């Protein structure tokens, strides 16, 4: 079974019934293998028309660090790069003793200014905390990582966690949905965005982006970093001349693709993982 097929087989609906602010599904959910462009020489998978958001849990391999991370793949709030920016990212985190959760949030038209993707993200972080005992997770070590539009979603939940964007449904919605850390890869929608205002409780944040990103300008990272700094939030930012967009966690000869090693060192300094 392929990684994507496995994901779809083991996914859990995040809402018990119909999601809040549900839109009529324009089309059935569709999975497409994309070969134009290839990323690091390989194809990737896009899912579109998601009306039933789900999460898939990858338990830690080896020693459990107690930390967990929810992954928000990108796709311009139109689709979800489910393997490139989802399952492959979880393979990396779970190999480092972390519980990893891929969120297949609703698309299209569910962000950056619509509420649905944020609702799905808030719900999922609360759900992960409500399963902490069962999944052997430390409730104070639940972070998020996002790519492109998913990185915007990570910034959105990092600045909108004090109240839920939807009426609470069950006990999971009484858990905090504040991420304990946030990792943003090649974020978009953060320049001149009045909705994204860091608070002093916004979690420590890691940013990485390339100057030659043809989709989301590096100004997105710079603007968010400056706003985090003004709010007194600890932030780390790595900007590279070359790298483009949408490289996920697939290593190439470009140094930016080695960002996971920088994240690994960073997670130690913010106390999420141990030396």
């Amino acid at each position, binding site marked *: 079974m392929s990684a994507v097929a496995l994901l779809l087989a083991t996914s859990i609906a995040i809402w018990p019934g119909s999601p809040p602010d549900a839109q009529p599904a324009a089309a059935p959910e569709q999975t497409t293998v994309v070969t134009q462009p290839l990323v690091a020489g390989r194809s990737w998978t896009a899912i579109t028309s998601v009306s039933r958001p789900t999460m898939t849990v990858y338990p830690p391999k080896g020693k459990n660090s107690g930390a967990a991370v929810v992954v928000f793949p990108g796709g311009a709030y139109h689709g979800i790069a489910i393997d490139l920016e989802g399952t492959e990212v979880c393979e990396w985190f779970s190999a480092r003793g972390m519980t990893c959760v891929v969120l297949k949030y609703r698309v299209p038209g569910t962000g950056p200014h619509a509420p649905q993707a944020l609702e799905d993200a808030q719900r999922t972080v609360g759900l992960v905390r409500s399963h902490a005992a069962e999944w052997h997770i430390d409730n104070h070590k639940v972070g998020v990582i996002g790519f492109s539009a998913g990185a915007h979603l990570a910034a959105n939940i990092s600045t909108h966690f004090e109240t839920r964007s939807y009426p609470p449904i069950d006990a999971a919605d009484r858990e905090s949905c504040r991420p304990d850390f946030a990792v943003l890869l090649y974020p978009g929608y953060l320049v001149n965005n009045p909705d994204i205002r860091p608070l002093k409780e916004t979690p420590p944040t890691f940013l990485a982006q390339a100057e030659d990103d043809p989709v989301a300008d590096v100004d997105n990272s710079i603007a968010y970093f400056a706003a985090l700094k003004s709010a007194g939030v600890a*932030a780390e930012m790595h*900007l590279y001349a*070359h790298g483009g967009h949408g490289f996920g966690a697939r290593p190439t000869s470009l140094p930016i693709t080695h960002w996971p090693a920088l994240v690994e060192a960073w997670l130690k*300094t913010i106390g999420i993982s141990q030396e």
Partner: protein
Amino acid sequence: MNLVGILLAAQIAIWPGTPPDAKPVGTESAVTVKDHLVAGRTWTWVTNVSQPTITIDPPKGKNSGIAIVVFPGGGYEGLAIDLEGSEVCDWVTSHGMTCVLLKYRVPCSPQAKEALQDAQRTIGLLRHRAAAYRINPHKIGVAGFSAGGHLVANLSMHFEKRAYAPVDAADIESCRPDFGIGVYPGLAARRFDASFADLVTPRMPPLLLVQAEDDPVDSVNDTLIFYTALQKAHVPAEMHLYAHGGHAFGVRPTNFPITRWPALVEEWLRTIP
């Protein structure tokens, strides 16, 4: 002989006679600083430098042909000659590169013109003597710390014209560095002679900048402003900003990830043309 002793022994004067714009300073001195330990160790402060020199360390192992000129920091008042000089050269030479430690003139005038002259002269000299020093004249970069980072930026913006009257054939060579590295650069250490908008051009070399948000000496804000100007001018630049790390850590590794910056430079050097 300790490291500093060896260093002082092998210095080459960069000017044949009196340097341009020379002014009298006190007697050159080197002091061991024991009250601000870095990674638990002392470091050496040199001041009153009126005769600028270079010290050339050949690469260990295979010679890549790359040379890095190191500008130590010290607020243009002195030079942290080991912490941000000879120890950096140990790293440079262990990676197959020639290291050139520049002991530039300090204390400097308000615009630090003497330091810029010394830096320009050094790059020209190295290109002129490239064959003798076994370096590739197209792979001569600079790395500077704190005020030395200011000097990296200043030289990267002022290479079209010498800031002094040419002395000899070395001053006919280009003094544009092929790449520049600014570690906790003190971009506000001295005022530049114009705004970044006027000084930053697409002809500038690729640059890499590293700094910590909690740097108590030089603000990361200046680095962000500089980077933004570079980006607007399409100068290929890489910037690594960390929450923690402070100032003046040199190449001494601690628990802070920022102190692993040499590994980022190593990768970066493979990607620039």
